């Protein structure tokens, strides 16, 4: 359901004082106020550029600022360790959590090693292993999404890219523990949603989340990859539109000028967003939390009738 519809529906209900619903109303109203007006084509493109900025903090930059005692877990226990997707254990304040996140590289050497944050099926299998671990021990799962997409290569296909992405989503739909997904840069298509099926999905102010890259969309629909700006303006991958469409639950503010201007401040804001989201989920029965998670996705989409 679109945010504005959800809001007007909630607003129209007679509420008992202090019910959870009024809490949700407040949260939505707060988010909507933030949107002020709909982003323009220029603002959308600016988010595309900032989301891909070479100095933008990546998953591991946030990990070292947000989590204590971080210990990286390597390998899918099947055939490989995919450096494009990192998994690990860490402390969020006093609580152990499991982290799953795409990792782009900073310099050419690391970019090549990390495959520009484009995971193979092995990466998603490693993520599923980390999810199972989280569930086994009751650790909340935090994911960070920053990928142009899952890697489109011959070996990736041979190793079952489509199936791995599908199964990773299914694994997230099954988890009993609280799950928070944070889109921190590029939320590129199936490779992003594979690790983003969560109780709460947060998006940083200048991150993007989309079904296809602006260049890919332009190449297909405009038959010219150079029309990427037009494509982005048309499919609206910015955080404000994702919130409006009910795809994400909250926008996390970035420092003035974008996350890369002040990684510490960006990390502090992201941490606050994660803590707030976890608080909201606290106290819910695991089965109820899972039911609500699935119901949220079940309701996504806009329909008409003949």
């Amino acid at each position, binding site marked *: 359901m679109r945010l504005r519809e959800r809001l007007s529906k909630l607003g129209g209900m007679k509420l008992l004082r202090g019910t959870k619903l009024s809490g949700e109303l407040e949260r939505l109203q707060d988010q909507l106020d933030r949107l002020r007006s709909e982003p323009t084509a220029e603002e959308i493109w600016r988010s595309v550029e900032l989301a891909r900025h070479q100095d933008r903090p990546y998953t591991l930059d946030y990990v070292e600022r947000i989590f204590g005692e971080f210990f990286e877990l390597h390998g899918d226990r099947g055939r490989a360790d995919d450096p494009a997707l990192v998994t690990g254990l860490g402390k969020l304040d006093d609580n152990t959590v499991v982290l799953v996140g795409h990792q782009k590289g900073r310099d050419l050497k690391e970019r090549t090693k990390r495959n520009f944050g484009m995971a193979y099926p092995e990466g998603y299998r490693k993520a599923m292993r980390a999810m199972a671990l989280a569930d086994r021990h009751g650790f909340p799962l935090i994911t960070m999404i920053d990928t142009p997409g899952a890697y489109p290569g*011959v070996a990736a296909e041979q190793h*079952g*890219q489509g199936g791995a992405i599908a199964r990773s989503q299914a694994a997230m739909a099954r988890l009993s523990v609280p799950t928070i997904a944070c889109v921190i840069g590029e939320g590129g298509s*199936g490779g992003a949603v594979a690790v983003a099926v969560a109780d709460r999905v947060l998006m940083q102010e200048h991150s993007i989340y989309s079904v296809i890259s602006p260049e890919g969309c332009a190449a297909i629909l405009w038959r010219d990859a150079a029309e990427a700006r037009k494509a982005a303006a048309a499919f609206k991958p910015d955080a404000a539109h994702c919130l409006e469409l009910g795809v994400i639950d909250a926008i996390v503010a970035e420092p003035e000028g974008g996350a890369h201007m002040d990684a510490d401040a960006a990390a502090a804001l992201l941490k606050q967003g994660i803590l707030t989201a976890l608080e909201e989920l606290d106290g819910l029965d695991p089965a109820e939390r899972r039911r609500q998670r*699935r119901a949220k996705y079940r309701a996504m*989409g806009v329909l008409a*009738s003949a």
Partner: protein
Amino acid sequence: MSGQGRVDVEVESKRPDESSRGKAHANTCPGCGSHYRDEELAQTLRVCPQCAHHFPVTARDRVDQLVDPGSFVEEDSELRSADPLGFFDLRPYTERLAEAEVATGLGDAVVCGAAAIEDEGCRLAVMDFAFMGGSMGSVVGEKFARACESAAAAGVPLVSVAASGGARMQEGILALMQLPKTVCAIEELHESGSALLSVLTHPTTGGVLASYASLGDVVLAEPGALMSFAGPRVVAQTTREKLPDDFGLAESNYRFGHLDAIVPRGELRPTLARLLRLFGKA
């Protein structure tokens, strides 16, 4: 079987010039060049008698091929796509939708309903590639999710026949969200105790492969069906790798362990009936 002709699929888009070009040669076999009349192909379930090439099948024809005569009762046929983004590329999305409906006679790219196959009750969700490249937007996701719920309520398996270029770009991020939506629906279906039998036909790529089509308790494919997350063109352009001749085809996927069986079209109905009996509660 021609690998070359089969993999030449424009993923996620259906251009007017291509669909008309497709129509002109629709009954000429890309495998061996033989040409057939409609009735000839209908008799062989649209499989080339010379070289066994599997021609595309519309959703309506597929239903007729699979189910006991008269047993199909369509559900949710009234659903239509909205235009949540006011999407406009070279043409408005609404115009593309209207054109696809006229061309196919379908409300969107999937047909769902209750049916029986050799007297075994089931629910069916059959995609049609002719409707905007079988792309998955809100309606395809919704109808698939409802088919899961309908199967769960009836305590019968869901049979899915996929044919799709992937997520529908014109619905932006909401199209991507149909992946987790269908995946969540399958979780609920499985928890109810019902099975999902997934059949992949040419082509099943992108978001549909990366969601419900891959999650069958049993996954089958037709011979020569392209089933890849990224299309061959994208892979070739991105990686500059030389693609193997059988790149992404059912035969390759079977070899790598992603499929339970490759089933020629003529054997699909009895194969599904056998599986329905195996999953049925005696």
